[in-house]
């Protein structure tokens, strides 16, 4: 673990600011006879928002789970800053600076905002929870959201969908993460809340985090991302710079109407 962290520090100098922070090379994964991923190769640029699009079942979520330590590729490799990595657990991926905001909002409803922000990273003092410090730090983390700030002592159950997503993103952005993976972060949100979460995603990028965004919303992809990868039936069929493509082309690539 510590060896891995040492490796990650060196190559990400400012000299290659837009170089890939994360790379998948020919990653394949099958569940029984179902070939969920077949020779998928994608890169995630440092300081960029990279979008991953595709129809339901195209393998997007499976691919990001290979990055976040939930799945292990059966062949191919995942490189972090050019060095091959293999995460056995989500915890290992987090340790390497890869945080995931889950589609199903991985928050505990009956715990407070600050308890969720510090879940499994609780600060302790003499073996006891340092509630005061965690509350204060949570307040700091949340106040950077600027919009619709939830009370850190309120239970997540009482928050709106947008506030919950903000808390999830906040948790992912904190703790010095380098890459934040978001699986449809605005799927369950209204128009205004979506706009706020998008602001938050842009802010993450501006603060230097790389973002890997799964989205079904093409307008959102065109608005936010710098790079788009298109997946279809377990393969990565195309990659485009966002400013060199159109929403129409992306749709065509997803459906197969346009051959990559």
């Amino acid at each position, binding site marked *: 673990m510590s060896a891995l962290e040492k490796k990650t520090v060196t190559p990400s100098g400012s000299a290659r600011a837009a170089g890939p922070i994360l790379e998948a090379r020919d990653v394949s994964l099958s569940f029984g006879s179902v070939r969920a991923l077949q020779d998928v190769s994608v890169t995630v640029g440092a300081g960029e928002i990279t979008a991953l699009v595709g129809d339901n079942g195209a393998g997007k979520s499976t691919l990001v789970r290979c990055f976040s330590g939930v799945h292990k590729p059966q062949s191919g490799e995942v490189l972090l800053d050019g060095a091959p990595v293999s995460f056995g*657990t*989500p*915890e290992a991926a*987090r340790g390497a600076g890869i945080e*995931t905001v*889950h589609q*199903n909002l*991985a*928050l*505990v*409803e*009956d*715990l*407070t905002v*600050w*308890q*969720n922000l510090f*879940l*499994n*990273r*609780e600060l*302790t003092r003499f*073996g*006891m*929870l340092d*509630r*005061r410090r965690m*509350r204060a730090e949570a307040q700091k983390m949340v106040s950077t959201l600027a919009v619709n700030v939830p*009370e850190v*002592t309120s239970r997540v*159950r009482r928050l709106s969908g947008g506030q919950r997503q903000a808390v999830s993103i906040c948790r992912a952005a904190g703790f010095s993460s380098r890459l934040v993976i978001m699986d449809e972060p605005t799927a369950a949100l209204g128009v205004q809340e979506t706009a706020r979460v998008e602001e938050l995603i842009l802010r993450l990028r501006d603060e230097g985090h790389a973002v890997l965004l799964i989205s079904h919303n093409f307008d959102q992809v065109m608005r936010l991302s710098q790079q788009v990868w298109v997946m279809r039936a377990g393969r990565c069929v195309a990659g485009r710079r966002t400013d060199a493509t159109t929403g129409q082309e992306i749709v065509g690539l997803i459906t197969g109407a346009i051959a990559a």
Partner: protein
Amino acid sequence: MSTAATGTPAGPSAPSKASPPDSSGGGGQAAFSRLATVGFWADWAALVGLIVLVAVFTALDPSFLSSGNVTGMLSASAALVILAVAQTFVVATAGIDLSIASVTTLGIVVLGQLYAGGQPLAVCFVGAVLAGLLAGLVNGFLVAKAKITDFVVTLGMLSAASGLALVLSDGQPVTVTEGFFFDISLDGPVEMVSWIVVAAIVVAVIAHVVLFHTRFGTHVLATGGSPEAATATGISTARVKVAVYAIAGLLAGLAAIIIVARLGSTPPAANTTYLLNSVAAVVLGGVSLFGGKASILGPVFGALLLTVLLNGLTTLGVSQYYQPLSVGVVVVAAAFLMRFQK
């Protein structure tokens, strides 16, 4: 204040629907409007019920609050308080331990057999606690690692532990008469508070600290509240589950010591009322059976309420046969109130 606000879902400061944060300016009014909500009564069902019962029984029979009767009730509640706390840990992870009373009996029998074998009391105590811990660990591993439903695992343990108790004791109780051991259920540091009551209080305080002031406690609540979220943040829900069943077993062993201290003997037949009453106390205490929401104070008051209820009915000369009926009615009524909890 800080504890109640963040640690104890059933705490008084948990804001209810009728008192949104912006109404906190009018302190008295907010407090009053809170009293008017069903949610408040649901949160404090056990304490309110306890006060009402004490008032009613005292009105009907003034000797109910005599120091002798209070001493007796507190001592009688000690084992149930510990078992209710034990059950709370398991229920907080959305599990249930149906074997808790049988494991207690196993502890009682192990204590008795070791005593009959001439072992010093300290060894007998350790034996009882270890027997409970071991049964709890088996429960935990079967639930968490073998992934068998908690209901089935602990139902199996219910049968296995009570069977083992009969096998070990050959169905015979052992009389445990040792001066100091007998005294701990009668004497205590303060009047009306015996040493076994002190033990129950200590267990409750430690349990509260563990649940609300340690990382482990937070992980217990997270495991019950949302196993997916807990796993996603790297919490090993399997390890948490093994731990809560182990804690329940260990506390069952401790309860065994307290029961033997009160009885002066080691009855080998399982006392199933402890199982029903431990679950009842947890429900009365406002702990969610779906996990994730727990309190220690609630189930402690729940255990006291049940003890007072049974004692009061006995003092009033109500037939023993009505006691399970009354417990059933109280528990279902409390569960009904819980529906109005936020």
